[in-house]
């Protein structure tokens, strides 16, 4: 099966969001997407996996499956959860170099840039960094 590249998935998401003119429709869609999020298993939903934001909290876990990293996550806020679901759709189930090298332009293009700004403090920016850190760590492990 041909797997889509990071950018192909991003372009697909951009296309999906282009159907919505109204902000609330975009949020409705994110609420819907929040249900698709591969949830972190309860054993990992601990402080060790918590990314504390002032506005919302995010839990993230990444594990190696062969040479690919599979991410699971959760958040206490639903819109945040919807955005996580998108990030995971783009970055999960990939090999570390793809994750490390990914340039995530879709967030900006679908108008959710402010959700990944350092001032928002909702855990998402830190989560993205954490995903890349997982990739760097697993890359080192795979190279051993």
């Amino acid at each position, binding site marked *: 099966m041909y797997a889509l590249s990071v950018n192909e998935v991003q372009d697909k998401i951009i296309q999906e969001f282009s159907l919505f003119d109204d*902000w*609330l429709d975009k949020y*409705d869609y994110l*609420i819907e997407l929040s249900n698709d999020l591969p949830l972190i298993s309860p054993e990992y939903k601990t402080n060790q996996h918590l990314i504390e934001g002032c*506005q*919302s909290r995010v839990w993230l876990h990444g594990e190696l499956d062969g040479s690919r990293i599979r991410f699971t996550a959760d958040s*206490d*806020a639903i*819109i945040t959860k919807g955005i996580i679901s998108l990030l995971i759709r783009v970055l999960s189930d990939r090999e570390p170099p793809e994750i490390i090298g990914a340039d995530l332009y879709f967030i900006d293009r679908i108008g959710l840039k402010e959700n990944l700004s350092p001032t928002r403090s*909702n855990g998402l920016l830190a989560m993205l960094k954490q995903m890349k850190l997982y990739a760097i760590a697993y890359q080192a492990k795979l190279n051993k």
Partner: protein
Amino acid sequence: MNLDVNKIRKDFPILERQVHGKPLVYFDNGATTQKPLCVLETIRSYYSSHNSSIHRGVHFLSEQSTEKYEHARETVRKFINARSANEIIFTSGATGSINTVAFSFGERYIGRDDEVIVSEMEHHSNLVPWQMMCERKGARLKVIPFDEQGILDMNWYSKAFSERTRIVAVTHVSNSLGTVNPVAGIIRIAHQHGVPVLLDGAQAIQHGQVDVQQLDCDFYVFSGHKVYGPNGIGVLYGKEQLLYELPPYQGGGDMVDCVTFEKTTYNILPFKFEAGTTNYVGAAGLQTALEYISGIGLERIAAWEKKLLDYATGMLQSINGLRIYGQAPEKISILSFLIDNVHQYDAGMVLDKLGIAIRTGSHCTQPVMDHFRISGTLRASLVFYNTMEEIDRLYEGLLKVKQMFGS
């Protein structure tokens, strides 16, 4: 006489703008208030016609700037009815004022095993500076609890004093619950034990008349930007004798009398606490803001805000599954609330897209959130330029939130 809110709104140009294609509803006044045209004009004309550093030059502009600065100080003195202009220190804001007192009072009067009384509802600004000082000095905090309505336990408080109690630092009005604390009683009890009181007036000064002599508080602090003035200017009021006894907080220009490498002597009050080039433009802007609200009348402002609070409380309470945190009988127009099964951040994001600006999170009062075992609330903080129609917009927005999140 009633307040003409439509006329008042014309004084605040930002209230006319749109956000996400909708007319702005600004309900984040607890974080900062908008500025009337007269304040903007004061700042503009200051920089375009009068700008010069104060207390320095012999030249015309510097003297004029100094006069304006001292005039602003006098306006603040009158506004809070302090005895003397020496009791009015300009700072960067309420946080700067509290840090000044926590440091200087701590250096002079607080030692190992001494006690500082604060309350469970303090803004982090009136908590962390005291904690830092306590850590330095080996002193400890005692915390007045509040009940489910958001009312301080005065019985607990009256028994909290010991021989080691050195100061009480309590908020006049809670920024996350809206509670107006019984400060007269708090001060009376403290004084019976010979303990001075600092009041954090950051959320009180813009909602009603404050008379520091009548209150008999020892320190009173507030920020300019929360009372329609510019950012970066604040006030520390302190009784003259106390301020006289305290060592300076920061060293630098203007706070000194005579400087040699062997020994530096300090300037007289109030300059001892105003190191460096002060925010004299901010002081002038604050003066204009205080004159502006005095012109409208603080009683009229309070009366309109009470109407807004009553109407908003009724509207919010009519929403199924909505809980208001902070239900003290004495409260100002701040409404902290949550809707069952809806995260405050989700609700805030939807309201934002409807043009409604409210605060979400812990409001810099994490212990208050811990008290209720919640991670945060939505907070609508209303002031005299807000309207009943705006409250209706919030109400409709919250219904939309409920519908979207299936609550």
